[in-house]
């Protein structure tokens, strides 16, 4: 390990690159081995073939693939953990040093006020040197981030024809950028994925058999029998992990897009893992197609950015879209970190370009040079037509909004937000570990992560859309989860709901809160899913909660760990959810304080907090308490083997304590949150509402404060975290008590409630009729149009083609006659003539080699004579 540390000492960012590539390596290994297996299987009766075949596993291939994949992801976890620690240590040491210098500087400033005469000069000199040290340290930290934790190489260069300038055209890069957010994401993803891999070794053991009977597929000959696909499952898992890690790693939108699509493909493959089942196949298609709709938006957004800004690199994009924070004169007043709107003045045009007048409701956005000059003169810039790297440009404001919304549409698809949330619950068709992976660590997290990453690209309008989308989603999903009886579907809707929370947080400026919740949610959602998987495994693939109940004595580990998850997601104090979800509520509270017209954005999540507590408690109580509802299931129920329970325990511990800080009861003291906070873009703060703010720099990070001190109290999340948390806790308690009353103590009968509100219940059971709506609006019309086209094809086009064919046959008949008699006649005549001549001439060919030689010699002599003659003629002439 020491060697590795030394090896990566120069470029510690490579820890993460290696961690990304390891699952890819595992994927390739398993793929190659499988290919060899397939190739060798045909020849397994020959000695060489048998050797190859047995080398790749033989008829019973065992768990090797799982070990390879698990080993790869575990190693990736180790790498990312080491990398994360190194990053944190470096960050910490730099910041400590910076803080010390600042403190000293502050003290000097204090003393300076009182000092006089010579002492003053001395102090001034000291302060100056201290300031230099501080600046040097800050520069070194910035350099370290740029050189150690970032890197990329040019993969492809797209230069439009006629442009020879290397800086023009677009470079597609492959690269990595590590900040504390991606470092944490890395550790989170690899850790959870490792546990899920381990869990899967137990869960997927059925697939180890050479012949698996699928009870859910009925064929003419009974149940379907197929070969076990143990290795394939782990191969897909590896690819999935690689895609997700690459997405987290990426420093440019194009790489993100590649991983984005890979994630989509992997989800397609894994959701449709039991592809013989009609439902699984449909769910896979649905997930994929729904995601494609989102991806279309993503592509559009990328293309808009490319067209107007000319790069995919996020760092450069942000630099160009957002105003710089400071220049040599200090902070840029008024516009620092903001998107600067204004108008182009066509009447004021010089050689350098058109003048750009800043106006808050202008139709254009100023693009800043991506190689900013030392002295920044942004106030009255000239906008060039084709800006060079150190010139200003512009783009229409609505284009930037559209780009942001396009990218967000991609995230909507991936993170199952309203209105594209329909695929996620159906994705339950995949094996449970896959569900856990999709819901916790990889796919749905990708959308939120991307919104977080591209944050500076979103304008205030776009953010509002994001917030409302999240708000609607979280409420709709939570209400549906209340009535679901399938244990996994409850969890699925809870995921959608929690993702809605995150989106809402991002939309209202709670960048830290949203991404913090993303990380904590990953742990407890993975726990809950694996727990449900354990329950399902124990109950012989029974997923209906109406057939469970009273499982607690039989599955104590599962039940207790799941309880931890339930409490965490509900937001019980000191559980992870309390720290992260309530941070979102606090953020929303601050937002509506400034913008009371968006009150809904606070009420929806607040209400949903209660609903969440209700349905999660309902799920746990229905499953583990009360009397068994189905004796058959209850008899067979058993605790799962250790590969499944160990991950549960580990995740359970994480769900409780991952967000802890000191002091424990301070919701703002979370270490994890503080770490995420390091990665926050200054731009995030600049856009927070349209309040009058001032930006201040404090040891490398930017802080924003409202100029109105009273506003300051209310607006900033950390001031009202406990307030919002307390309100939410009351609702949560109500929800839990309500659930306990209904499903544990049976004070209320759920069936009665169902009868009292039959339409509401049906509406919710029908998932707010989204599927029906889409079917009526999109699917059916498409089918009808398709039928029309088919009919047109059959009648009109085929008719024409048949007519053409018939006429061609008629023509060719006559053509054939002509061919046969006239053309063949001529050819035969020629042939016969040549044959006749040849028959006469053949007597010359005596068969005697020597006579041929004589002919040759004579011919040579003749040629030389002729040549000599012609040469003389030529010379004479």
């Amino acid at each position, binding site marked *: 390990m020491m060697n590795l540390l030394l090896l990566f000492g120069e470029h510690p960012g490579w820890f993460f690159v290696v961690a990304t590539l390891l699952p890819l390596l595992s994927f390739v290994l398993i793929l190659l081995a499988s290919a060899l297996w397939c190739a060798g299987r045909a020849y397994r009766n020959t000695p060489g073939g048998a050797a190859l075949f047995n080398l790749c596993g033989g008829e019973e291939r065992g768990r090797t693939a799982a070990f390879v994949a698990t080993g790869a992801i575990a190693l990736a976890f180790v790498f990312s953990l080491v990398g994360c620690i190194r990053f944190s240590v470096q960050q910490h040491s730099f910041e400590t040093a910076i803080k010390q210098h600042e403190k000293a500087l502050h003290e000097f400033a204090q003393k300076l006020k009182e000092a006089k005469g010579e002492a003053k000069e001395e102090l001034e000199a000291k302060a100056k040197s201290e300031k230099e040290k501080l600046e040097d340290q800050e520069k070194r930290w910035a350099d370290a981030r740029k050189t150690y934790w970032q890197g990329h190489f040019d993969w492809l260069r797209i230069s439009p024809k006629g442009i020879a300038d290397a800086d023009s055209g677009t470079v597609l890069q492959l690269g990595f950028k590590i900040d504390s957010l991606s470092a944490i994401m890395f550790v989170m993803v690899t850790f959870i994925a490792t546990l899920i891999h381990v869990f899967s070794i137990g869960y997927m053991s059925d697939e180890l058999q050479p012949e698996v009977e699928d009870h859910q597929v009925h064929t003419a000959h009974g149940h379907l029998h197929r070969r076990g696909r143990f290795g394939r499952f782990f191969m897909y898992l590896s690819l999935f992990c690689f895609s997700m890690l690459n997405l987290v790693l990426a420093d440019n939108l194009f790489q993100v897009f590649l991983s984005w699509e890979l994630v989509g493909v992997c989800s397609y493959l894994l959701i449709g893992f039991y592809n013989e089942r009609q439902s699984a196949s449909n769910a896979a298609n649905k997930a994929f197609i729904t995601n494609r709709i989102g991806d279309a938006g993503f592509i559009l957004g990328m293309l808009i950015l490319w067209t107007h800004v000319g790069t995919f690199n996020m760092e450069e994009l942000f630099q160009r879209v957002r105003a710089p924070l400071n220049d040599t004169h200090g902070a840029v007043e008024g516009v620092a970190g903001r998107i600067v709107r204004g108008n182009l003045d066509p009447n004021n045009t010089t050689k350098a370009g058109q003048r750009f007048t800043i106006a808050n409701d202008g139709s254009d956005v100023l693009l800043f040079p991506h190689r900013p000059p030392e002295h920044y003169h942004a106030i009255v810039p000239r906008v060039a037509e084709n800006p060079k790297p150190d010139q200003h440009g512009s783009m229409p404001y609505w284009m930037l909004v559209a780009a942001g919304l396009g990218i967000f549409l991609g995230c909507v698809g991936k993170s199952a937000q309203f209105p594209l949330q329909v695929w996620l619950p159906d994705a339950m068709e995949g094996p449970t570990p896959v569900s856990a992976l999709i819901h916790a660590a990889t796919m749905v997290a990708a959308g939120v992560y991307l919104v977080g990453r591209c944050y500076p690209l979103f304008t205030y309008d776009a953010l509002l859309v994001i917030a409302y989308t999240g708000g609607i989603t979280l409420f709709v999903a939570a209400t549906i989860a209340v009535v679901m009886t399938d244990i996994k579907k409850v969890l699925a809707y809870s995921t959608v709901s929690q993702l809605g929370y995150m989106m809402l947080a991002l939309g209202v400026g709670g960048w830290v809160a949203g991404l913090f919740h993303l990380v904590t949610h990953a742990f407890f959602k993975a726990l809950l899913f694996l727990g449900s998987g354990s329950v399902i495994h124990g109950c012989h693939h029974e997923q209906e909660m109406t057939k469970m109940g009273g499982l607690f004595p039989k599955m104590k580990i599962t039940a207790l760990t799941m309880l931890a998850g339930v409490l965490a997601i509900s937001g019980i104090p000191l559980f992870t959810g309390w720290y992260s979800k309530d941070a979102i509520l606090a953020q929303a509270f601050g937002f509506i304080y400034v913008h009371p017209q968006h009150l809904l954005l606070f009420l929806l999540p607040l209400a949903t907090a209660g609903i969440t507590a209700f349905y999660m408690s309902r799920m746990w109580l229905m499953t583990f308490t009360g009397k068994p509802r189905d004796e058959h299931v209850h008899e067979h129920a058993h605790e799962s083997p250790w590969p499944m329970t160990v991950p549960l325990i580990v995740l359970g511990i994480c769900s409780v304590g991952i967000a802890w800080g000191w002091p424990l009861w301070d919701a703002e003291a979370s270490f994890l949150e503080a770490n995420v906070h390091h990665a926050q873009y200054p731009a995030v703060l600049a856009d927070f509402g349209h309040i009058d703010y001032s930006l201040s720099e404090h040891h490398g990070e930017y802080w924003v404060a409202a100029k109105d001190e009273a506003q300051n109290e209310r607006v900033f999340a950390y001031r009202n975290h406990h307030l919002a948390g307390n309100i939410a806790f009351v609702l949560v308690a109500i929800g839990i008590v309500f659930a306990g009353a209904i499903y544990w103590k049976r004070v209320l009968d759920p069936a009665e409630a169902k009868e009292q509100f039959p339409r509401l219940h049906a509406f919710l059971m029908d998932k707010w009729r989204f599927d029906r709506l889409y079917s009526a609006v999109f699917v059916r019309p498409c089918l009808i149009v398709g039928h029309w086209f088919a009919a047109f094809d059959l009648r009109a086009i085929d008719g024409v083609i048949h007519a053409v064919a018939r006429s061609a046959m008629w023509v060719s008949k006559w053509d054939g006659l002509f061919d046969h008699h006239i053309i063949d006649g001529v050819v035969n005549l020629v042939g016969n003539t040549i044959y006749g001549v040849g028959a006469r001439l053949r007597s010359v060919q005596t068969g005697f080699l*020597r006579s041929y030689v*004589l002919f040759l010699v004579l011919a040579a002599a003749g040629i*030389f004579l002729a040549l000599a003659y012609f040469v003389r003629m030529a*010379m004479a002439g």
Partner: protein
Amino acid sequence: MDTLNDILFYVLMATTCICALAVVLTQNIVRAAAWLLFTLAGVSGLFFLLGAEFVGSTQLLVYVGGTLVLVVFGVMLTAQGPFVNMRIGAAEWAIALAVGLVLYGVLSASLIISKPPQSDLNRHVDATMPDSSVLGASLLGQGQASPTGFLTGMPPAMRRERKPMAYLLPFEIVSVHLLVVLIGAAYLARAKRRRAV
């Protein structure tokens, strides 16, 4: 006729011509092979005389040491009494000699009548030929060009800048050709059951 080279030329020419004639005239096929050996060795000597040492050595190694031994093998493998001395009729001899004389007459006449093409670059007769490294370089694809010049009797418009020429492709083709020929020869000559005659 005042340098050793000229004397050597005439000696070698005489050897070569006499031995070549002997090849033609002898009736015994093995003796013909022996005469051919001297002819080829004489030609190789002429190459050395011309300064083409590499070509001369190749001639010795490939022709004398390889090809001719192969031919003698062929003779010995098919050497049954009647085939060693196979005679042809006097009439055929006469025709062949006549035709040969005609050809020689035509060739030498055309040589003498039409001056052989010469270049405007006058080489001193004793000037050295390019040595084996130049040949090797041009065979291995590092272009080596002969000097630029133009032939007598050609219009000046035909004078062109010579680009460095590389013979890597022909060299490869010849090598592959040799390999194919070796395989083909081995295939053709492999022992087969003799068909009943």
